[in-house]
């Protein structure tokens, strides 16, 4: 923080909060647009909506951590020890969503069992 002046850091904070606000409004408008609230009959595919929302939220998280929490100005060792462990979550998200999906199909199979025929040999 020491290498930039007070005025510079003030300007940077104002710029960051404006970007965060614009992204948030953009996200909400995009969600409403994609679900047909703004233009009637207009829908966007679910996977595209989800992808855009997740990328925009990740960018918001980056701004909050790097600008507001000053991660940008910490030494690399501190950045790595804090941020690298969170990479485990990538695996956790994929694994548990896949697991949830599996529960869903299992439950559906219990309600409507797939009938299999056993062919008896002679």
């Amino acid at each position, binding site marked *: *923080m020491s290498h930039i002046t*007070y005025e510079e*850091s*003030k300007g940077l*904070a*104002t710029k*960051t*909060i404006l970007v*965060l*606000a614009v992204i*948030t*409004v953009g*996200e*909400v408008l995009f*969600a*409403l647009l994609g*679900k047909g*609230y703004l233009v009637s009959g207009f829908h966007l595919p679910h996977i595209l*909506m*989800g992808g855009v*929302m*997740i990328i925009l*939220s990740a960018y*918001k*998280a980056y701004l*909050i*951590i790097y600008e*507001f*929490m000053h991660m940008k100005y*910490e*030494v690399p*060792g*501190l950045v790595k*020890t*804090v941020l690298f*462990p*969170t990479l485990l*979550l990538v695996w*956790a*998200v994929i694994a*548990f*969503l896949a*697991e*949830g*999906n599996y*529960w*869903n199909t299992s*439950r*559906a199979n219990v309600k409507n069992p797939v009938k299999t025929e056993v062919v008896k040999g002679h």
Partner: protein
Amino acid sequence: MASDTLTHDHDLAHAQDGGSWKGGSEPFKASYGKLMMWYFLLSDAFTFSGFLIAYGALRFSVPTWPVPDFVFSTFPGGLHHKPLLFVTVMTFILLASSFTMVRAVQEGHRENKNGVVFWMLLTIVGGLAFLGCQAWEWTTLMGEEHMSITTNPFGTHTENGVYMMGDGHDIKEGDTFTAGQSYLIHQHDGKFAPLQYKVTEGPDAGIVKEQQLGPKAFGALFFFITGFHGFHVLSGVAFLLIICLNAATGLYVKRKNGYEMVEKIGLYWHFVDLVWVFVFLCFYLL
């Protein structure tokens, strides 16, 4: 690397009597308190991630899930059908309080006591406003819409159909709906009164069915996760108050460390905002 540092007399003396292992030097050029705040926040991030991942797994494990822009569409003053408006206001309040916190930390760096107190007070107001909004949101969900941690009146249609209006012998066809639309089952005299509808498409076409309650886990997940976040905001406000009072009485002036305590609570406060970004994403946007 080692020869570089050993050229300094201070480091030489330091290395001879045990170096970093004897303390006195700051790992990662951050103070103990700040470093530990970072690691606490890392562990807290894992706690929140655990909850949000559980939410994702349970959401994927049922065929339908309440549509968020239907569930969260009320606004104070008796307004309805304003999807996501109120929660956007809440997000803005929290973002604004994050900005005022940044300003408080910046004033602290230049040892400006009045600036620190002023911006911290604004941050506290922001935190309290957010909590007020959440209280209103919970009151509406529990009191008017009768959602609880065990009951979820928000269901979602899986077929196209038309509502059957009226009772007894005078049954007319009312509003139509399509698969994927959510509905709220209202209560009459303390009991849920699900509407009847006729399926108009698919293998069950022509059959009259009744609205079903939505996935049970929705209420428990919503109240528990937003409640856990709200509890973080509440304790954050408490710590902000204590540190603001300390700053106002001039305690940190004597320490001459650029109001480091303000910086630490600032880290916590931004983390609360960071978590909200993901709660907002999972519950309201997706």
